[in-house]
């Protein structure tokens, strides 16, 4: 196997704070003031050292070698440098220091449908988009039928793209990019759009590109599921450096556990108006974890009841709505994921094909997890809201992952399931998700009469 991409000591620096003042007048004004020894009238108020331009290193000494045919996943929280790295790789912006050596043609899918012109027809846009990505007319001609078939827009080929639905837009964009036959394909978060069917199709296509055609793929996503499905190798970026470079499973576990601890949500999450997760019908408003006495809390003793309250908003009438709460368990030793479960709200008590339309308005889902059920560790709560009678996967409106966390701590109380056992409950590397209070009795067998 030979190397397809070699990144050597790559740095990218951005100027922070005042990046030019946007107008020539202000630039001159600042320059004049500084020359006269006065304070820059355009600096931020209160910043005494405003004359010094502060720099932000978006990438710090990245060294990376990627083999041909490998699917590399990049994960990391927002601002970790993922997009910067991709932008440099796709030559949209250039690095500050260091270099990247590439073998073959790069196609980047930083956003699907870039360069689509709304007035042009689907057919014209396929050619335009292909050409933007460096294909000749002839090459596109040869791929044309495949692209159209993959995108499923045959009927609308001669319709201007501005009349396309957003789904068609995305499908067409992805179809063109996936058929570019690049040696290196860069994919950024595109699978987040489109329905479940399309996502599946897209993931299969990327798989096919990498395994059958021996192409190198770099894939960035916040969706750990797709990352897990696709990638052979995953790196975790944090503050511009690679903090983990391992198999998909190990890196993901590392990331959702330790890597992003500071950015985990605890206690309560309330979404601002424009940031509410959800579709056109249902949007998530907030979620919080509370103690029995209604006090907001994120750390529970093992013998305490946990109350979870989800608020959501129904925006359109005429739908059935069901809320599902999922729990991912990370043991508190190595923070590996050691299990999960989910529950559905009381909608399931209705007959499944019954019409039970929800009104427009705000709704609340409450869940009580009894004390002495879950083991110590960290739990991430996943909220999915979907529209029965369809199943969750095909009709979800809200789909989140580990949107909020809570910790369970073993307080060594003898009235819990621990009793007076004084030692660590978690044995070995694995974690045990539940520690229920069950009746377990041992007694002397009298007269050798066993029950078995």
């Amino acid at each position, binding site marked *: 196997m030979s190397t397809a991409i070699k990144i050597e000591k790559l740095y990218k620096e951005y100027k922070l704070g005042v990046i030019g003042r946007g107008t020539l007048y202000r630039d001159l004004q600042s320059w004049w003031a500084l020359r006269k020894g006065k304070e820059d009238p355009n600096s931020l108020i209160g910043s005494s050292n405003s004359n010094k331009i502060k720099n932000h290193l978006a990438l710090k000494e990245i060294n990376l070698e990627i083999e041909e045919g490998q699917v590399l996943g990049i994960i990391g929280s927002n601002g970790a440098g993922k997009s910067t790295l991709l932008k440099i790789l*796709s030559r949209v912006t250039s690095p500050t220091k260091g270099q990247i050596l590439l073998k073959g043609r790069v196609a980047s899918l930083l956003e699907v449908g870039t360069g689509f012109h709304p007035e*042009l027809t689907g057919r014209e846009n396929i050619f335009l988009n292909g050409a933007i990505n460096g294909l000749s007319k002839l090459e596109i001609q040869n791929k044309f039928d495949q692209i159209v078939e993959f995108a499923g827009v045959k009927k609308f080929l001669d319709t201007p793209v501005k009349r396309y639905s957003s789904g068609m837009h995305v499908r067409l964009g992805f179809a063109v990019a996936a058929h570019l036959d690049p040696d290196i394909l860069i994919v950024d978060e595109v699978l987040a759009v489109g329905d479940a069917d399309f996502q599946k199709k897209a993931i299969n296509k990327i798989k096919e590109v990498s395994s059958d055609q021996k192409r190198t793929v770099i894939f960035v996503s916040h969706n750990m599921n797709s990352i897990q499905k696709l990638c052979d190798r995953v790196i975790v970026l944090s503050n511009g450096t690679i903090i983990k470079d391992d198999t998909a499973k190990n890196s993901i576990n590392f990331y959702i556990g330790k890597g992003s601890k500071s950015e985990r949500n605890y206690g309560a999450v309330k979404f601002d108006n424009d940031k509410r997760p959800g579709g056109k019908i249902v949007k998530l408003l907030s979620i919080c974890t509370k103690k029995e006495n209604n006090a907001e809390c994120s750390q529970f003793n093992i013998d305490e009841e946990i109350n979870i309250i989800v608020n959501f908003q129904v925006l359109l009438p005429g739908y059935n709505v069901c809320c599902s709460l999922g729990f991912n368990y990370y043991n508190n030793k190595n923070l590996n994921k050691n299990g999960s479960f989910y529950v559905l709200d009381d909608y399931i008590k209705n007959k499944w094909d019954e019409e039970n339309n929800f009104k427009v308005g705000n709704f609340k889902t409450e869940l009580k997890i009894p004390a002495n059920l879950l083991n110590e560790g960290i739990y991430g709560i996943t909220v999915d809201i979907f529209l029965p009678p369809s199943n969750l996967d095909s009709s979800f409106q809200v789909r989140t992952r580990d949107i909020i966390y809570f910790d369970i701590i073993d307080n060594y109380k003898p009235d819990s399931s621990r009793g007076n056992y004084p030692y660590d409950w978690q044995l070995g590397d694995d974690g045990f998700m539940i520690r229920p209070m069950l009746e377990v009795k041992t007694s002397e067998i009298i007269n050798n009469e066993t029950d078995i």
Partner: protein
Amino acid sequence: MSKDYWTTIIKPSKGYINVNLYELVKYRDLIYLFIKRDFVTFYKQTILGPIWYILQPLLNTIVFTIIFGRLAQIPTDNLPPFLFYMAGNIIWGYFAFCINSTSTTFVKNADIFGKVYFPRITVPISNVIIGLLQFSLQLIFFLCFYIYFVINGLSVNINYSLIFLPFILLHTAIIALGFGLLLSSLTSKYRDLTFVLGFGIQLWMFATPVVYPLSIIPENYVIFSILNPMTSVVESFKFIFFGESSIKLIHIFISVSISISIFFVGLITFYKTEKTFLDTV
């Protein structure tokens, strides 16, 4: 492992020109499609459609004829004012279109430039070619009037110099690209320059012998007018059709050398901006 093994090396931007001609040839279809896109979408959802291409210079010419010809009575080297203004108008129109569209290359395409790599220079190149297409339409239109006037007794001194037309157009393109590329780097940083630009081009037109002939400028000041490279373009354009101009060969040489220098300055700035503009928009 030798360096040849790698097909692309991504490095920090350096201030030299790296016009990769091979790459440009590879992307020739893109240039073609850009041209097609902009040419076609220009008149989508308009009433008059492609007629706009010739209506614009026609209306301008009529206005100029009335204001500068009839009211201000500016001499036109003994040529019919209508033809005189129209000639000036279409060649200036070509220049103005090229410089306008080139100077907003980064601002208008920031979205797509931020997502995918292709040689950015393809955008200005396609703009210049679109300008050329528009100009050709307008030239045909102009020739119709020209022939009409000749039939009606206008005596013109038409000669071999017509073969220089392509060079004049090339010269115009070089000036427009030079300034346009330079300005495109500036507008990517200072948005307000785009507003200044429209006004500036208008002023520039009045500083160029478009609505008046070079011959009305006093001898001592002609050299200042020549420092404006568009003077020689407009004057020589009129010369090849009317055989009438006070421009001299030495003037054209001066102006061409100015244009070429500006072109390279513009090109260097453009390539420098291309690599980092995303961080400043």
